[in-house]
């Protein structure tokens, strides 16, 4: 390769990488741009990578089926690198430069609260497809993930019936952990139990020794964990190293969301109870067909299709249904169509958008970790988002725009 051809090919390569950042506005006329902003690097990449993969699959499938309204879809992906500043910047770019028809993304509640106002201001439809703490009430935003009113509401009574009434809560120290632990407290009290203590941990804490001793001193019947991210895996590790996995049982609202059950050993995790909308081994024809397509696209050795990944896939499908029904890419018409009770038959079962809350009615399953597998022990059909519907009614107050926090 001589110097000139080297320069030419590098320039071409550079131009190639620059395309997703600076797409030409003229291209938007005959295609539909779908923006995706999830962390594919940084501390939250354990969650973001599978979400990005599912998004890719969903868009490819839609294009293979002829696109939407006769147009092809183009996915404009951004990686905010677990950095809130980049979230704001990319949301801006996605809305203004790409002129995205819809933006899907955000993992932590913090990132959602960064994107949401930007997209509302720029009148760009926003889908947040992650399980989260509930309470977001915004006409421009659709939260398709499962919330504590659906999962915690089923998990806590099930675990308390099995293990006992005294509960100790450990949670991540930001709005997800703070709010979810309030829901845990509410459902423990509703079921006649008591919460011994709620301990919060910054995301980078790796030493759980004192907490583990404190938990032992409190002698709870079970603990509930809402810990998040790579550093917090240390808790399960140290919990097992102190010999407590066998002594005090654990239920969690976040465990396995980042494939923790594969990273940790069998002895460290056997018997944990978790609850989500989707589990890879759900025994339905839709799920089987989906898994076949997914593994064909991303390889048979893909570790585990997570709840968040499925949320992304189903969120996209719901939006696509809405567009078909609206017959238009106009934001108002899309919202109106999505508010008619659109539903899809997803791999996790039937998922229906609730007009009043912009959240979903969906199935919830409880699973037990056994031998590094998530074994479903019970499935609850069509759970409404009771937490959010208690505070939010967008049909009555379409101008509402905030995240409510439950008081217990």
């Amino acid at each position, binding site marked *: 390769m001589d110097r000139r051809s080297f320069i030419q090919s590098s320039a071409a390569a550079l131009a190639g990488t620059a395309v997703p950042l600076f797409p030409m506005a003229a291209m938007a006329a005959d295609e539909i741009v779908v923006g995706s902003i999830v962390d594919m690097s940084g501390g939250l990449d354990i969650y973001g990578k599978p979400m990005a993969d599912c998004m890719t699959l969903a868009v490819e499938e839609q294009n293979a089926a002829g696109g939407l309204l006769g147009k092809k879809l183009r996915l404009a992906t951004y990686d905010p690198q677990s950095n809130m500043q980049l979230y704001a910047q990319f949301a801006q770019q996605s809305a203004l430069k790409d002129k995205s028809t819809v933006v899907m993304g955000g993992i932590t509640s913090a990132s959602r609260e960064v994107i949401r106002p930007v997209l509302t201001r720029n009148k760009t439809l926003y889908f947040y497809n992650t399980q989260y703490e509930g309470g977001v009430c915004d006409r421009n935003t659709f939260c398709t993930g499962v919330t504590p009113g659906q999962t915690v509401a089923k998990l806590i009574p099930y675990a308390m019936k099995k293990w006992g009434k005294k509960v100790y809560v450990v949670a991540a120290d930001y709005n997800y952990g703070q709010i979810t632990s309030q829901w845990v407290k509410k459902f423990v009290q509703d079921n006649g139990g008591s919460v011994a203590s709620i301990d919060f941990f910054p995301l980078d804490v790796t030493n759980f*020794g004192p907490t583990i001793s404190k938990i032992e001193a409190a002698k709870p019947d079970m603990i509930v964990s809402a810990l998040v991210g790579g550093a917090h895996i240390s808790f399960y590790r140290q919990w097992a190293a102190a010999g407590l996995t066998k002594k005090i049982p654990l239920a969690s609202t976040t465990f396995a969301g980042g494939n923790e059950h594969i990273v940790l050993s069998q002895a460290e995790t056997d018997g944990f109870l978790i609850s989500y909308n989707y589990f890879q081994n759900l025994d339905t024809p839709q799920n089987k067909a989906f898994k076949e397509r997914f593994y064909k696209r991303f390889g048979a050795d893909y570790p585990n299709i997570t709840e968040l990944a499925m949320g992304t896939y189903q969120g996209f499908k719901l939006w696509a249904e809405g567009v078909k029904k609206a017959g238009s890419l106009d934001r108002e018409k899309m919202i109106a169509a999505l508010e008619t009770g659109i539903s899809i038959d997803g791999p996790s079962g039937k998922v229906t958008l609730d007009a009043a809350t912009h959240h979903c009615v969906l199935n919830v399953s409880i699973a037990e970790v056994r031998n590094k597998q998530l074994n479903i022990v019970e499935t609850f059909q069509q759970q409404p988002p009771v937490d959010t519907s208690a505070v939010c009614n967008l049909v009555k107050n379409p101008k509402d725009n905030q995240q409510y926090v439950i008081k217990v």
Partner: protein
Amino acid sequence: MDLAFVVLIQVLYAVASLVIVSAGLAVIFGMMKVINLAHGEFMMLGAYAVIAALKLGINLWIAIFVVAPIAVGVVGVVLERLVIRRLYGRMVDTMLATWGLSLLLVGIVTSVAGNTTAGVSAPLGSFSVGAYSVSGYTLVIIAVAVALALAIRFVLTRTQLGLIARGTMQKPDMANALGISPSRVYSVTFAVGAALSGLAGGLLAPLTGVVPTMGAAFVAKAFITVIGGGPAILAGLLGASGLFGAINQLATFATTPVLGEVALLVAAIVMLRLLPQGITGRFFKGSL
């Protein structure tokens, strides 16, 4: 009574882990005055060395105590030759260069090992203290910290190598005039510091999730400890680790983990206000 004993073990553990996390930095920053912002990434490399060694079927203890320090020590030698040695005496420049190195290392490891969390279970099980149980691995950490402190003391005071290293750091020209090559001494010292960081990462691998970005959680604490310790390497390391570890752990026991971290930082600020040169700037002057 049981609780008091458990608290004591936890405090010793917190002190010991600060000693282990900071030892490599104490050598590189304390002795050589190189601000090594890639310290956390050296630890991360040590942790990944353990994971890689286990995959090759190497015994866990050999992986921790042999593979991790040697692997990271070798990386240290290479980086010193390529980057650091051009920047001695230019503190701000080394800061920038090592920060760049830390980003590079995170990037390389991410593309090689992927960004999923890896890890290994803690060996040795647990033992009971009355109604409480304590992980056996906690005692290993405490023992290693003691052994490490003794070894640093022995090397620096009783061996030719230690004397030469200390002399070279204080007066490189004089050492050169006596026929010692300062550049080789720097190289060896940096490698030893890197190896200690690698050992720290290997030791912590069974206690925490191993991800390419894990270094960030440790680098700040290591710097606080080394700066709080002041000019004497060993006495400073032990003094600051003892003070900050105990405050952090006791505050965590008494209140919450969040306030425990806050107490550590407040203690560091107050202490540096009272003792701007660190603990050994005022006390234990002239010690190691």
